[in-house]
């Protein structure tokens, strides 16, 4: 599932960028005002990716055990 989320990251971002520029050209909302949405989409995708990733075991600390 994590791989799937990783693979759809690009297409989703492409659709978002395309939609924002389309809205900009249609004079509905300027890209200078709507760009934070790209950050939000990237953030959400990253979050989903981490949620679905299997937990990584903690690295071995090394040194003598107490």
């Amino acid at each position, binding site marked *: 599932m994590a791989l799937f989320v*990783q693979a*759809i990251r*690009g297409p989703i971002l492409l659709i978002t*960028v*395309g939609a924002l*520029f389309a809205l900009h*050209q249609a*004079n509905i909302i300027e890209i200078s005002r709507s760009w934070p949405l790209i950050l939000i989409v990237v953030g959400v995708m990253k979050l989903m990716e981490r949620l679905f990733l299997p937990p990584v075991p903690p690295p071995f600390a090394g040194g003598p055990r107490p």
Partner: protein
Amino acid sequence: MRARGPLSGPVVLILVGIVFLIRAISPNFRITDLVARFWPYGLILWGVVAFIEVCIRFLRSAPLPRNGVSGGGWIAVMFLAIFGSSVFQFQRPDNWLRQVGFQSGIEAFGDEHQYPIEEISRSTGTAPHIVFEDFRGDAKISGTDASVVTVTGQKTIGSFSPQDADKANTQSPVEVVTDGNTITIRCHQDRLSSRTSIATNLDVSVPKGASVQASLSHGNFDVSSLSGDIELSGGSIEDVRLDDLSSGFKLDARSTQSVHCSNVKGAIELRGRGSDVELENISGEVTIGGDYTGTISLRAIAKPVHLESMRTQLDARQVNGYIRLERGSLDAKNLVGPVKLSTRSTDVTLAGFTNALDLQVDRGDVELRPESSALGRMDVHTRSGNIELALPPSAKFALNAGTENGGIDNQFGDGLKESSEGRGARLEGSIGNGPDLNLVTQHGSITVRKASGEETAEAQPSSGDSDH
């Protein structure tokens, strides 16, 4: 079985093929126009195709790509975005390149060579239909009392050698063809190679009753003293000037730098894209649609006005005074309502309007000074901005004003009750028996004050219509 490559590549190839095929079949089809207008939809389509592809692979348990869009894909997206938005910006009539005076003029094609056009005359009826086939140059058309069409003018050909210019001149004769009541004027510029720069400037006199249909790919258009309809279409028109017309005018061009119409008795309809518009003393209905991004100035319009620009939609029943709309501000005086206005990022000042007002502003201050004799219902809403309403001291009304973030200043005394609500305030109450005035701002202050005698006198319309 061999692993399949991505689907988006072939889809893009098919689309590019279709576009070039249309270009080959229809020479008027412009690829740059298509890219400029629709490139964001191309990105969306690409994203959707890539998304569907990933979903199919996932459902078939096939190996998934690490990224739905490769690094090379993102570089292509970047180039498309830069190219698409640059062409889109350049096609705007008020783009900065045009503003600093850069035009692909004749000077870029060597020296200018002038050739006079010998006078051509054709006798006609009193109301012929004149057709200008698509050409580059200026057209000056004036109405006369004679029943004859006369064409003169001159050609300007840009060329590095006089021989080439002479050849281009003989290849592009001006021709006037009569077919019944229709007179067609052809400049034959299409016979020249696209690298030859030519402007055919025509001076045409026609009977007063003539109607005109013209297509201009580049140049100025000037018409005076006609009583037939005028229709103009074309590409990149610089200046359109009309004066003293008894009939209507329609314009639909890819870009028009400026439109000036005065003393027109018929309806005016402007479509397409353009920059400045100036209309004065118009007896017919005025419709400005499409995308006019410069200063729009309307004065003395006797019939309804419907204006739709980048950020603004305005409907008024009549303009006795003026409307001036520029980037960031709309200023109007003596409008006959009902007035309906919705705008974004624009400060609005309306003085001396009558009847109902429906005003929606996204961001911008609102200043209203309605006329005393015909105060109508008002619904005013701004998301962010101050509202100032100046009413005649004797006005009768029922006020309902509220701000969610800001204060209220009331000069009408105890008849209106003020209360505070959180960070905002409300002002409610009636003075006499009058129409409802609803004022709402989400962020901003509200001022309800008495108009000074000077303001009231100033806001009286010169000729009124207030039967609502």
